């Protein structure tokens, strides 16, 4: 089943074109990786999918589960089952993780015509999922991301992913700033959340995350476009040759 379809997407920030005609289709249960050098529009793509204000879609369409999500508010996209793990998770003083998740989970449940979870069930789920991603439960009672280290913030993103049970999870540079141990923990968390009815779009600069999260497809993004797509072996090729390979001559590109 087709989950996400992006057609000829062009996006501008402050009038400057960043994404210049991008096409991508993701089906149920697939894991796609988008790689590419810095400044090619990878994170812009993540934000546009989540609906961050300030990003102007100049042309093209994005359909998620058959709906045009460009017409939906960010919270509606989330309720439809789209999740973004932020590259730079925001600190929210005064709002505890538990409270934050409880509010979000119940809003999503309401949207799906489910009863809100009672306090005990919710607490149970909370602790279970925290354990799944290796987040110490003491973090549940702390304010969202406040005073968390880089690794803890990323882990907290995966924990939220686990809580909200999305259909498509977009991971924006989740590996950046993580040491190898933290990377493994995050990757294991994601792997344990893989399901036939859940797809992933993993945005990364380095290939190393893909050692732990085996993608079905790898796309290389350059200058606002996907310039080459392939299987997981493309990631190794890219790692071996470096991104300069893209700039010099574009050998082997269509």
């Amino acid at each position, binding site marked *: 089943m087709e989950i996400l379809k992006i057609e000829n997407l062009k996006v501008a920030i402050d009038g400057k074109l960043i994404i210049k005609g991008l096409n991508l289709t993701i089906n149920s249960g697939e894991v796609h990786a988008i790689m590419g050098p810095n400044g090619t529009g990878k994170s812009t793509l993540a934000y546009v999918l*989540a*609906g*961050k*204000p300030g990003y102007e879609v100049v042309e093209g369409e994005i359909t998620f589960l058959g709906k045009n999500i460009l017409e939906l*508010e*960010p*919270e509606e*996209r*989330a*309720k439809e089952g789209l999740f*973004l793990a*932020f590259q730079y*998770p*925001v*600190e*929210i*003083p*005064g*709002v*505890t993780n*538990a*409270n*934050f998740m*409880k*509010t*979000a989970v119940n*809003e*999503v449940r309401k*949207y799906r015509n489910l009863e809100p979870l009672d*306090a*005990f069930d*919710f*607490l149970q789920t*909370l*602790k279970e999922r925290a354990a799944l991603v290796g987040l110490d*439960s*003491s973090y*549940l*009672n702390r*304010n969202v991301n406040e005073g968390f280290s880089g690794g803890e913030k990323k882990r907290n993103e995966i924990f*939220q992913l686990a809580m*909200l049970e999305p259909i498509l999870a977009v991971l924006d540079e989740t590996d950046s700033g993580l040491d190898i141990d933290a990377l493994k923990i995050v990757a294991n968390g994601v792997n344990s959340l893989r399901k036939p009815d859940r797809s992933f779009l993993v945005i990364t600069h380095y290939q190393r995350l893909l050692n732990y999260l085996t993608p079905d497809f790898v796309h290389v993004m350059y200058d606002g476009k996907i310039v080459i797509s392939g299987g997981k072996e493309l990631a190794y090729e890219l790692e071996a040759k470096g991104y300069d390979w893209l700039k010099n001559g574009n050998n082997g590109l269509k």
Partner: protein
Amino acid sequence: MGFIDNVSALFEKKFSKQICRDEDSERLVFFEKFKELGLPTIKNEDWKYTNLAFLNEINFQLSSCTKAIDTGLVEKYLSFLNGNDKIVVPYINNSIDESFVKPLSSFDYKILRNGSFFANTKLISKFSNFFDSSNPFNFLTLAFSTDSAYLNVNNGFENEIPIILFYLYDFEINTLSNTLSFVEVEEDAKINIIAIFINRSRDKVFANEIINFHLKRNSNVEVNILQFNIDNLVLIDNFNFILESGATLKINTFSLNNYFVRNNLNVLFNEPYGTAFLNGIYFTADDEFVDNHTLVLHNQPNCISDENFRGILDGTGRAVFNGKIYVARDAQKTNAYQSNKNLLLSNDARINTRPQLEIYADDVRCTHGATAGYLDQEMLFYIVSRGISKEKAKSLLLNSFVSENLEKVEQPDLRNFVKELVAKKLNLEDIFFCSAIDELTNASL
């Protein structure tokens, strides 16, 4: 007719006929002082952002009508205490209603009826220590003062039972209200005060209330000032505090729903090693006005003051914060902090803030900060990206903006009550479910 003419006529009518009485000549002195200072204009730095000219348009009377108020009504307003023990000092329509007062032990409690304050020279001399002779309303209150309450809390008294200063206005004409209170807290005593202002009048009431606290050595006082649903009330309250060595004061103000409120909070460190916390939360919506005017006088060394006021301004609401920290020449080792933060939700809302430092001692650490802005858009996007609606995300953030100050209330019934009031204002109906979750996670960890 201007305000000065208005009150002059009232004064003439009420007191001049009885001039044979000593108290009336005292009143006259105070009233002349008031007239000399006059109604402050915005040229007066202390009233720069607080325009009182509208008082000239209202014709005030002195009401002698003492409506019977049944205890049930008071209980209703105090239901947030869940029927727990309390001590109530009821200022009902400008006079203290004795029928509510339970017999008190560990307290010396006097009601000084109409004017008898002026006969009590001991009290007058104590009062004079508090005097801010630049504030005309102090003189106005003294000139017109009706009943006064005097509370003395015995040495070492310590009790969780809150003492309620209950101000209820229920008049049928535009009326002035002026009362004096004096709370003397003896050494090592610890008390919790809740001052509540409630207006039931449909006409304008101009209330000038003075409440003076003397905190003796090592005493500990928390004063919560609660202002909500006070339409039509023009309130200028003057809370004055003198702290002796080792005394700790905590003030929490909650101005949640107002017409016109000016809180004058004056804290004087008269001996070394005092500590004072001044916290406030204010909300203003359409046509509401709140002015917090604080003065912390570090006259002695080694004292600490920490001030934190947060405001949320919506509609055409207006707020003023004027906070001054004064550190005298010899007040070395002073630590003084002050912070005032504001969020503006509407383009018609206005904030004027003046944090001020006046420092004459060098071995001090004083900081102040003030901000005005809007909700952090990154935070808002992060929250909505988790499926939470924009409205709710805003409410969560607004609640978190003030939550720190809500948590500072020590009396648990009151803390829950103000949290509930704030949550209601923010349409966060399930706040208690959230805090239940917080408690559960706390307990299970």
